[in-house]
């Protein structure tokens, strides 16, 4: 993958103003869905704060409401009760102001648009002039290493490449907050590790806060400043595990070597124990979901 030449972060790396110090604030949020077989409590009394520039992963088994929580932050669904704010605004206002970029499990590219036109979509919708748009798209494609594929159509790319296009698209407007719902869930292990390293690099460069939904422990540990461990039925936050990896906890220091360090395995174990309800489960990474 090419070096991020020519990429300039949106804000000169986080001079935290009091109002912007908190990226996401979730207070007492419940979410109930009406289904044919009655009410389902998807989220129950969720409290969570994500600081500006912080990388937070939501992890838990299927049905623990981690995707639902992300959708609430994105204002794609409404909470049944409780409040959510994004950069001090209501989630609706934050969405209208385009405060966040978003990527889903499926890339969700428009198949009739070229790679470049897909990345340009948010810029186009928000009235960025075509010259500036083309420059920005070239920059983004360079950053995700797809500069040579600008004129291809999504169906001509592999799954990993499509996901990289989706990530470039989510970064198009230099958001201060990135919401990602298992974006690497459908990728093979090799591509996945590479994409994780890229994401670490990109988020360090842009200084954006990230809310990252995943069901992979090593992925959450590798990427995050904090891992939010959730339990299902009803969806609750069981524990928030801070990651302290290496002497220098900066994200830029997270390289592939980290995956083989002792501290990494300790953190994997910590998250794993939190997931399994506190009971010690083995001594090492053996048996851990290694994806």
């Amino acid at each position, binding site marked *: 993958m090419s070096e991020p030449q020519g990429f300039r972060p949106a804000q000169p790396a986080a001079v935290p103003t009091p109002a912007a110090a908190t990226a996401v604030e979730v207070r007492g949020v419940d979410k109930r869905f009406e289904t044919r077989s009655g009410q389902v409590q998807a989220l129950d009394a969720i409290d969570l704060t994500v600081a500006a520039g912080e990388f937070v992963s939501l992890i838990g088994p299927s049905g623990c409401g981690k995707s639902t929580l992300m959708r609430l932050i*994105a204002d794609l669904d409404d909470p049944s009760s409780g409040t959510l704010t994004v950069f001090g605004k209501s989630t609706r206002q934050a969405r209208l102001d385009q405060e*966040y970029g978003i990527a889903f499990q499926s890339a*969700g590219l*428009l198949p*009739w648009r070229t790679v470049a036109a897909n990345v340009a979509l948010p810029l186009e*919708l928000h009235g960025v002039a075509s010259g500036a748009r083309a420059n920005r798209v070239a920059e983004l494609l360079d950053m995700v290493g797809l500069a040579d594929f600008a004129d291809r159509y999504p*169906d001509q790319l592999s799954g990993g490449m499509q996901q990289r296009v989706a990530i470039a698209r989510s970064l198009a407007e230099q958001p201060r907050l990135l919401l990602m719902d298992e974006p690497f869930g459908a990728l093979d292990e090799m591509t996945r590790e590479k994409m994780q390293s890229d994401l670490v690099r990109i988020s360090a460069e842009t200084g954006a806060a990230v809310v990252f939904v995943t069901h992979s422990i090593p992925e959450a540990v590798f990427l995050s400043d904090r891992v939010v461990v959730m339990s299902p039925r009803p969806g609750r936050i069981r524990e928030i595990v801070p990651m302290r990896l290496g002497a220098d906890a900066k994200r830029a220091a997270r390289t592939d070597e980290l995956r083989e360090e002792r501290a990494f395995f300790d953190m994997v174990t910590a998250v794993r124990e939190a997931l399994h309800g506190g009971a010690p489960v083995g001594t090492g990474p053996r048996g851990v979901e290694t994806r």
Partner: protein
Amino acid sequence: MSAPAATTRTARTTRPARMGPRTETTLRIIAPIAVGLIVLGTWQFLVSVVGVSDYLLPSPASIIEEFVAYWPSIAQAMLITGTNALVGLVVGSILGILLAAVAARWRPIDQMSAPVVASLAVIPIVALAPVLNSMFGADSQFGRQAIAAIASFVPVFINTLRGFRQTTPVHRDLMKAYAASSGQVLRTLTLPTARPFILTGIRIASSLAVISALVAEYFGGPRGGLGGLISTSAASSAYARAWAYVLASIALGLLFYLATLALERLLQRHTPQARRRP
């Protein structure tokens, strides 16, 4: 893991005895022409050697003779019927797309329009044509155009409505996340998603429009169209001439079909790529 996948892929590409793309194209053009020539040859043979009666089946040669002799009248008739069909196709398609857009947007309108569309779909042209002719006068082409429009409306409406419902949840979420206005959603997501469905509807409608415009001429109204001339020629025992008009009708129908096919190709330039990949 990748090795078996690679082997199956090569196996798949080599299994059918592949010919070069050029040979394939040539064959695709030559094969139907050959079939056509064989049929025409057999037909001519039946009439001129076996001696099938001219009343029963005029020979291809005599049909072509009539076609050439009556070309000015045939061209005029094609123009009249073609115009009726075209007006009907355009009006019917526009109404079909607009109403489908409204029905896709508001569920009650969909439910209200469903029985109306279902009954439009089964209206027999033979029943409607005389009624419209007496409604709008014997010298008006309006009745025929209206019939062609009704016939075109149905497939366009049904296909377009289906197309408008094909947007995926992830795309709708994306548009909501971008705070796109409903106009933007229509332009960047809903219409492009529906486009192949709309075009298929129009392609089906194009043939129906020609057939309806032509059949409607059998039931009174101004003379001069292909349908009217086929019935007059047949009534005056000019069978070869009647067949020449039939030939012109087929040509007109094909022209409409090919024009809409070309429109489809033009607006869907990169989808063949998508089809090639399973």
